[in-house]
């Protein structure tokens, strides 16, 4: 699982810089990628399950669904930001900590650009996941079956 997520973030989204390989090794090794991956998989799953099976409002329109998707994006993004921030700056990899502490290494500067990127990409992934979940879950929903279309 870690491998699949690593491929998604590093290869697909290109979030890798060999210059700062310590960051990415730490994320890989300490399960940071796993956490991020689970985030974009589980949050939309739970949110859309609630949308399709718990929300009993019978006048749901397309924009309701869209709004929900946006909220999912924001929540996933926020949590991803938190996770990546934590995993990078509060890791237990001494080498990484040293590198970050050393202003000349450029690690800190570079690392500061990462959480927002993970937040954005994970957010996009959650949109894709949310969309797929929607298409599947709507089949089984009694009240929101007509959303998104």
């Amino acid at each position: 699982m870690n491998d699949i997520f690593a491929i998604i973030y590093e290869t697909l989204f290109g979030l890798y810089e060999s210059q700062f390989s310590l960051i990415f090794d730490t994320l890989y090794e300490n399960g940071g990628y796993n956490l991020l991956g689970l985030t974009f998989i589980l949050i939309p799953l739970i949110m859309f399950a609630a949308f399709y099976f718990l929300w009993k409002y019978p006048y749901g329109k397309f924009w309701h669904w869209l709004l929900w998707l946006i909220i999912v994006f924001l929540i996933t993004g926020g949590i991803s930001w938190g996770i990546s921030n934590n995993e990078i700056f509060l890791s237990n990899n001494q080498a990484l900590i040293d590198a970050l502490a050393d202003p000349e290494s450029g690690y800190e500067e570079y690392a500061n650009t990462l959480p927002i990127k993970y937040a954005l990409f994970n957010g996009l992934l959650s949109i894709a996941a949310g969309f797929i979940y929607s298409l599947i879950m709507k089949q089984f929903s009694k009240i929101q079956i007509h959303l998104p279309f």
Partner: protein
Amino acid sequence: MARKLYIFGIGGTGSRVLKALTMLLASGCKLKNDFDTVIPIIIDPDTSNGDLNRTKDILKLYQEIRNQVNEPNDFFSQEIKTVNELANKSSVVNSDYFQFSLNDVDQSTFGQYIGFNTLNDDYKNSKDDKNFTRLLYSEKNLNSNLNVGFKGNPNMGAIVLNQFTDSEDFKRFGQTFSDGDAIFIVNSIFGGTGAAGFPLLLKNLRGNSDIPNSAKIKEAQIGGITYLPYFALNKKDEVNSDSFEDKAKIAIDYYNRTIIKQNKVNSLYFIGNKGNTKHLEYAVGGKEQKNNAHFLEMAGALAIFDFCENIVQTTNETQVKEFGIENDTGTILFGDLNLNNQKEIVKPLTKYKLFAEYLNIGLPKALNTSRWTKSNIWLVKRNENSFLDEQYFKSSEYKIQIDAFNKHFIEWLYEMEDNKPAFSPFNKINWEDALSLIKGNKGKGNKSFKSIDIENCKLITAIDLRSTLDKKHTTLIKIFGKSTEEVLSKKNLLKQEQNG
């Protein structure tokens, strides 16, 4: 064993009671004891009578709607047929088939009808029929136009109505009569048509051997309801409402001697209301006579249910029953009714009222938004798409049949509310508080039409609700039957209680 109930509605009152009965049947009330089919027969020479035409229209709409529902089991569950349909085994719906025609009343005066001018006036030879006739009938009587009924003169009605038992319609009625079928007659004692027609009809049913199946008919269960005065007119002219009571007394005496004591009917119901009556617009027949619906008419319809429920094959003695409510009040609510009556009508009326109001107030919000009105949902099985889409609600069938019928229903309720005594069990509602429609019953939780929409969403895919091309109203009628029931019971709105 499928049995039929033939209901003869005589005169204006008969029409109005039949109308009330139709409304109750539409709301889901059903006759007990295997009475599958109701066959209304209106007897009224006053062909352009407003009440009559309204009733005929409502009966026609009822049939049309019911024909478009696949195996109705709630709203419109009772089958209504005309004698014509049964006799010819056709399913043509024509409102005229509900009425038995009377010959020669269209253009004649009473005098012409009885051939007054051809009567002998040879008083010398004791053959002075003309003058004898003058004893019985005034000049006014002789010159009245018959096509507006008998204007409250049963002496005229008795003569004219006598002919109808020779009519083709009546013969056809006899042909369709089977074992186990029953007959119910509605009339008013103070009217012209009703007062005369009831005993006449009864005499023929029990004694006329020229009717097909006369033996069966003679032995069949017959019930009747006679209306005593329950309204007054605001003008005194040819028809003088002051005379209603006197006429009533005479008639009842006659009934007592002939009908009751001779056990010609199995059950006889009486209903009326003294004092506290509303003065109605004076009209002498014709389309102007369009009396507003009255609570007592609906109460009379309840007699029909009671008759079927208590039908027993063999009694020799006539059962006489009278209608009453629990509280003497000018505004009748559900709680003022007897508990048994409440059990019969509270739920159905509330459901149908909610249904009718929903289509007016609640539908706009849901149409094309709620999934139960959407027929264009992607990526789903075909049966997930609804039949009740915008196209359906704009269709001519919906407008001409459902919408028209519901308008009559709402009008009927409104007229009863506006009458004296008023029958006003329902509040005025809007979208937000739709579910608190019963007076004195707030219910719990959210009271908007939202609950109906939620239930509809859940029910829309049920197999037994699917409309077909030849049964277009199946989904609408059945789904609302279920959803209104579900919502009302969930919100605890159908409890019946006695007002103290």
